[in-house]
């Protein structure tokens, strides 16, 4: 079974962490992944950096720019990850914008992901409709789960459509924003979380954007199967380096 699906069946709230591959240093990728797993993180999103990350705020933008300066490319990332499954068991997702995948060739990209042991992809600027019409068959051929986003503005009808196309979990963006823009949740978000929880979707939901500490993690996972932390982790790595990852994770899961 796909590792994401197996993980979603576990009877616990899931913590997923995003980091930008190639940041702060080009060769940090594997050690960050191992450290996150060792410290009890359930799932990892490996950010494939892009020059023009439209949906990201300054923290992830800056880490992407630096990663590209460090020499990160699709090829380099795949090389770094080629033996990852010898040591790492938790689900691994590649999160990136569509153009680098498109240039690599969508089929070739998916094939390499499968060979490495990547379980899924999150591609914010590949709309569900285009995926469904042009690429779904390729993803399925290689057993990859594609994860779609919903936001507080997404209509119920579209959420049902996204739920029908999804085959793992739904990435629930907590508020209308780019990454790293929010701190904490208000009534509006709680109402949205409740609304989605009541829809009884076939795919579990994992909440992202605005989760940065134990408080927000606990709040989010009251309504959803798990939560994703991105900008807060990238900030932590910027400020404290990659040797204190255990401290960051412990603070979230305490």
């Amino acid at each position: 079974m796909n590792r994401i699906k197996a993980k979603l069946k576990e009877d616990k709230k899931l913590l997923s962490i995003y980091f930008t591959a190639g940041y702060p240093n080009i060769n940090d990728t594997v050690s960050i992944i191992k450290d996150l797993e060792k410290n009890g993180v359930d799932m990892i999103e490996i950010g494939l950096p892009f020059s023009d990350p439209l949906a990201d705020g300054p923290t992830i933008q800056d880490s992407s720019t630096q990663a590209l300066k460090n020499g990160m490319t699709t090829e380099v990332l795949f090389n770094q990850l080629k033996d990852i499954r010898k040591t790492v068991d938790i689900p691994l997702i590649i999160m990136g914008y569509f153009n680098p995948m498109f240039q690599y060739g969508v089929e070739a990209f998916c094939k390499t992901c499968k060979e490495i042991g990547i379980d899924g992809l999150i591609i914010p600027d590949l709309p569900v409709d285009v995926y469904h019409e042009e690429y779904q068959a390729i993803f399925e051929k290689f057993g990859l789960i594609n994860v779609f986003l919903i936001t507080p503005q997404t209509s119920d009808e579209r959420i049902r459509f996204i739920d029908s196309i999804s085959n793992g979990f739904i990435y629930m963006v907590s508020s209308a924003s780019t990454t790293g823009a929010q701190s904490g949740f208000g009534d509006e978000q709680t109402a949205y979380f409740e609304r989605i929880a009541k829809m009884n979707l076939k795919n579990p939901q994992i909440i992202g954007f605005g989760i940065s500490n134990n408080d927000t993690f606990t709040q989010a996972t009251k309504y959803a199967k798990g939560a994703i932390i991105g900008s807060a982790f990238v900030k932590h790595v910027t400020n404290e380096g990659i040797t204190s990852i255990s401290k960051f994770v412990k603070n979230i899961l305490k």
Partner: protein
Amino acid sequence: MNYNVNEKGYYGEFGGAFIPEMLYPNVEELRQKYLKVMAEPEFQKEFNQLLKDYVGRPSPLYFAKRLSEKYNTKIYLKREDLNHTGAHKINNTIGQILMAKRLGKTRIIAETGAGQHGVATATVCALMGMECIVYMGEIDIARQAPNVARMKMLGAKVVPALSGSRTLKDATNEAIRDWINNPVNTHYIIGSAIGPHPYPDMVTRFQAVVSDEIKWQLKEQTGNENPDYLVACIGGGSNAAGTYYHYLHNPDVKLIAVEAAGLGVDSGESAATSVLGKEGIIHGCKTLLMQTKDGQITEPYSISAGLDYPGVGPMHAHLAKTGRAEFMAITDDDAMNAGLELCKLEGIIPAIETSHALAIFEQKTFKPDDVVVVSLSGRGDKDLQNYIEYFKI
């Protein structure tokens, strides 16, 4: 061959709407409504009235006698530089502000390169009493200072884009991020024929007034509404789109699109997308795009802030791919000299963007009987500092 957008939002293989889910409700609302709104008689009436009384349309079609003599052909200039705010950009912003009002939006954002679109947006926001935020690359803020001052005088907030190459591409990224963060009350007035469907088509339709006028003006002056050539400079391509629109399916009329070669197409400092670009995704559409082998968008260069963009509108990518339009690339030097030549021969100071289109007469020979209509897309007041420095005036 169809050169207009199809029902799925594509021009051939180019176009579409490659947007994050956060933007879907906004873009979808626009997609469902834009044609209906534009077809409303009330909308048409208000749009046309403002173009006439406020913008000063129709803009003249001027037979450039001395320029024609020099190049031994018949050159007509479509004087978009005489529009209120000094360029074609206002045609689109008038249309989009009326659209925004009908969609119930109260806050307007825009990106700008040379500042002409920013000024045109700030102008219509002042006219309609709407809040206006313009994103502009830090480099462009420095090289287009007069337009920055104009936007501020008109009440707009100018926000510098500090990421990437700090030019038009990055200003567009920032505007899109603003829209993601303000999805309910905000309309994004894109200034070029780029972005997710329906933007390229909507912008083209608002700019189509240019070729609509060329048709009857040319008929009035020459007895034939069809020129042999239509020439326009092209960054994202709104001016070219409007100039071509009513002639797209008329094979008697040849189209020439003029890109910025910067220091030379192969110099590494260029914005000649049709030559250097490959199919890719930028700012919500699939089009020709300057990028690395790895799919990272590269930083273009041109002396002209308005042409300094690594992509081209999807309609133009289709025109390039099908060969419907001939694409030419003009260097900084050739553009500057052509700009100065127009000053001396016709008493018109063109925008540096427009100067690129004028420079083709040194490269391409036309027949004495050819009627060549050049879109004089903007006036050069905003570029005085660049002209002064370049020519040591």
